[in-house]
């Protein structure tokens, strides 16, 4: 009960801070906050696959790119409506994830990772090489943020960064809420069961393959959401979104924050972006320090930052009876 109150308080506090950021701080902080939330959406969705189901994918950059390019094409060729564009991006990513996932979920462990890597890089090389459609290494440029309209009645401008910030914030909250619901739903419990003991879940009559495919598509859709939002934020879509090094980001972030928790990837995104910005002030070689931190986490603190904080909290509370 005490825990529940504490977590509600904490959530409210974080939300309040997020709402206030554009009111009190400069443009750069707002921008960084947006990047944190985008990465957070990407990672929290990805962690359904890695943390909850125990599947390691190295191809989620492809879905991120599918979201961005889906959004871009929709904006260029069909309609400038932002929400429809985002929907198109999510749909494109989910369809791609369905197609790729259909093949990938046959394998597990190392072969799953390699297959997703192969498919992801396939998407990357397609985007890179088919210049006529995707713009090659230039990507799609000049995606604008038109106002959101509802049947011509209401018009919400999102042109300014502070205005766009609230769109991202609301979708971020929505995404985290959905993922939270999924994690505690019967579906999410089955996924955790697959992670813990695949064979037993099979004996229990669960079609493991279908569940894997479903969660693959879901996490792909979240990647697509993050991708389409980034396309609007940066007003472009780049082929490197699909590259395998970008697919590594959500893995790093999840691990940094804590693998099997909901808050882990979120805290991880915050640390990842903050670290990149702070360390970059002092030295160009931030990846080196990031590698070192990663090393320390893997060697010593496998629960990630959230795990460590939890342990400390428990220690502070003293040994509990029973």
């Amino acid at each position, binding site marked *: 009960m005490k825990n529940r109150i504490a977590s509600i308080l904490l959530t409210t506090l974080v939300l309040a801070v997020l709402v206030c950021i554009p009111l009190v701080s400069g443009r750069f902080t707002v921008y960084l906050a947006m990047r944190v939330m985008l990465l957070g959406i990407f990672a929290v969705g990805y962690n359904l696959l890695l943390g909850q189901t125990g599947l390691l994918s190295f191809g989620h950059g492809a879905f991120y790119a599918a979201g961005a390019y889906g959004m871009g094409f929709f904006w260029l060729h069909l309609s400038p409506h932002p929400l429809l564009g985002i929907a198109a991006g999510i749909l494109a990513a989910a369809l791609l994830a369905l197609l790729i996932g259909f093949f990938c979920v046959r394998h597990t462990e190392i072969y799953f990772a390699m297959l997703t890597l192969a*498919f992801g890089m396939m998407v990357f090389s397609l985007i890179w090489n088919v210049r006529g459609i995707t713009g090659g290494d230039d990507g799609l440029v000049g995606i604008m943020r038109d106002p959101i309209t509802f049947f011509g009645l209401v018009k919400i401008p999102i042109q300014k960064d502070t205005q766009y910030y609230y769109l991202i914030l609301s979708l971020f909250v929505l995404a985290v809420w959905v993922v939270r619901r999924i994690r505690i739903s019967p579906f999410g419990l089955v996924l955790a069961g697959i992670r813990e003991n695949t064979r037993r879940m099979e004996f229990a009559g669960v079609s493991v393959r279908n569940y894997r495919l479903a969660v693959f598509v879901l996490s792909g859709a979240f990647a697509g959401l993050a991708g389409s939002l980034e396309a609007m934020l940066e007003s472009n879509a780049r082929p490197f979104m699909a590259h395998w090094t970008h697919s*590594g980001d959500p893995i790093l972030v999840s691990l940094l924050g804590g693998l099997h928790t909901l808050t882990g990837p979120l805290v991880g995104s915050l640390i990842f972006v903050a670290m990149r910005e702070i360390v970059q002030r002092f030295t160009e070689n931030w990846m*080196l320090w990031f590698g070192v931190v990663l090393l320390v986490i893997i060697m010593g603190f496998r629960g990630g930052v959230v795990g460590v904080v939890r342990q400390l909290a428990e220690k502070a509370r003293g040994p509990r009876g029973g």
Partner: protein
Amino acid sequence: MFIWLVASGLTLIFGVLGVLNFAHGSFYMLGAYFCFTVLRHLGANFWIGLLLGPLFVCAVGYVVERFFLRRVYHLALPYQLLLTFAFVLIFDNLVKIVWGAGSLSPPKLDIFGGAVPILGRKFPAYNLFIIAVGPLVALGLGLMIDKTWWGRIIRAASSDREMASALGVRVPVLFTSVFVFGCWLGAIGGGLAAPYVGIMTPGMGETIIIEAFIVAVIGGLGSLKGAFLGALIIGVLSAFGTRYFPTFDMFLIFILMAAVLLWRPQGLFGGAR
């Protein structure tokens, strides 16, 4: 052929240790850099560079295995992969700090400067040398695995780790030595590749590791013969791909990799293990 050297180390490490080593591309890169640092500072003999450079890389590999990798064998796969990935980040950046972020061009080699005419066409001597080295290394590795005492132990440990350990093989030491040996292969690959490719950049490891993965996967992870044939297939395919479908050369290769993984995850030449 460099890909073959990198892939052979990769597949050897995977076969025995069961670890997919992302950092292998970094060892390749370190190999190239170390070889030519030795070359530049200790007089200009290519062979000495090729001998000493990879030894440095072996030392690095020893530290990586002994103090880090050894402690995560019992953990889940993501941790092992990410540990090697962390080393990719560290090594790439260290190279940037030590040798600069720009590309370096290794000194031209005098001994292999000439061209050899074969069937009325001229081939650069260095290319011929490399073409000869690849199969030689393959032959040597094959003999070593099949015939020597060490090779027998490697085979034993890779087919049944616990049994080998029960029979008195010191598995941790064996793992370290295999890892170091794999690093040496990768580093030799880097040292040989640098004069051929003509430039060295801090990102060269990331490019080669994906190709080596593909080669190792197509041939069958853990199979040396497979890695050799895989390298040949990829070489020929990418040459033809660039010639006839320039837009889709990489795409074709990834299709091949995915197809092999789907139909024969043990690889084209990997036995059922």
